[in-house]
């Protein structure tokens, strides 16, 4: 979206009026019961379909991760991670049988190490908020991983998981960027786009 309508006459009253309208208008009644009554149970796809999808997804994900690491080749060398940083960053896995590249994990651990240093200087309320939000991302990744373990190679689940990892990296990088200079910004630019 880029606001074609808003961009044509930025000083017009019509533009201002349209832009001021609320995007959300809740329905007058709860529509969910009618919707729920029409939902059909999900049918499982055949095993052959999952195997084919898994093979395609594995190749695609491998290519993406490899490409990101090639771009990352000139980034600073990662430091040894601390126990605390291990807790701050989630393990990056794809279902039961596939893990992200070790170098990629190392870059993430560096961000987490930096984060621990930043967190130490943050007000308790800010730290609590950040940790709660990171926990939600970890929860999402964990649950998507569980789903992936049941449906290995599911393209949507793979993509949802990658997006969650990207967002986590983005948050780690932006926190580092906000609280001091760190290689995080570079890492974010080069790593977030898997």
């Amino acid at each position: 979206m880029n606001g074609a309508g808003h961009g044509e006459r930025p000083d017009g009253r019509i533009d201002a009026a349209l832009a001021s309208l609320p995007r959300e208008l809740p329905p007058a009644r709860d529509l969910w019961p009618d919707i729920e009554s029409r939902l059909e149970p999900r049918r499982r796809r055949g095993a052959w379909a999952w195997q084919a999808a898994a093979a395609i997804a594995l190749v695609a994900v491998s290519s993406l991760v490899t490409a990101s690491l090639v771009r990352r080749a000139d980034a600073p060398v990662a430091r040894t991670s601390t126990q605390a940083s291990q807790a701050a960053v989630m393990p990056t896995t794809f279902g039961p049988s596939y893990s992200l590249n070790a170098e990629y994990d190392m870059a993430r651990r560096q961000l987490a190490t930096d984060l621990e240093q930043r967190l130490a200087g943050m007000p308790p309320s800010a730290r609590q908020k950040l940790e709660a939000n990171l926990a939600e991302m970890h929860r999402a990744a964990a649950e998507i991983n569980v789903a992936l373990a049941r449906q290995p190679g599911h393209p949507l689940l793979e993509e949802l998981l990658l997006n969650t990892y990207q967002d986590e990296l983005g948050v780690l990088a932006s926190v580092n960027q906000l609280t001091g200079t760190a290689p995080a910004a570079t890492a974010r630019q080069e790593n977030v786009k898997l």
Partner: protein
Amino acid sequence: MSVAANESELERARLAAEERRLVAAAVKGSSEAFERLYRLHAGKVYGLCLRMTGNREAAEDCTQEAFVQAWRSLPRFEARSSFGTWMHRIAVNAVLARGRRRTERVGAAESIEDGLMLTLADGEIGDTGDGLDVEAAIASLPPGARQVLVLAGVYGYSHEETASMLGLAVGTCKAQLHRARQLLGQRLGTEEASR
């Protein structure tokens, strides 16, 4: 980056993570997760449908249809766009399909005036002075112009996105938007009416 921007990004990332978790669960068949997605997005979808149709009953039908279609299509959802944007596309399709069915059945598009009266009678769209005038003016536009104005003017989609959603040529979309703005200006009595 400011603290506010950072907090905003953090909140966005948290909501996005929650949404992905719900989508993943819904793909597995959890209607509870899908209900949560409905609760998160019903207002946005219904608002779009109400503005595009100008009619409360039609908007409710289209909202229900959109979520039912989304449930069926969820395994094919590509997470490159957000779930909300994807839902908007499905809702637009539901509105267009309903319009086609009605046209085939009664030979004419739904009465905008009836829809407008229903909506205004309920006070459902806006109740704060200028907002009500604008909503009423939008609802009174011809369907084609109204749909383009809602997508491009209210929801900020580009000409290309709007044209794609409505199955129009980009040039047609621009012409409809120009027409819609002129008509809206006339109804609101602004200076833009004469431009």
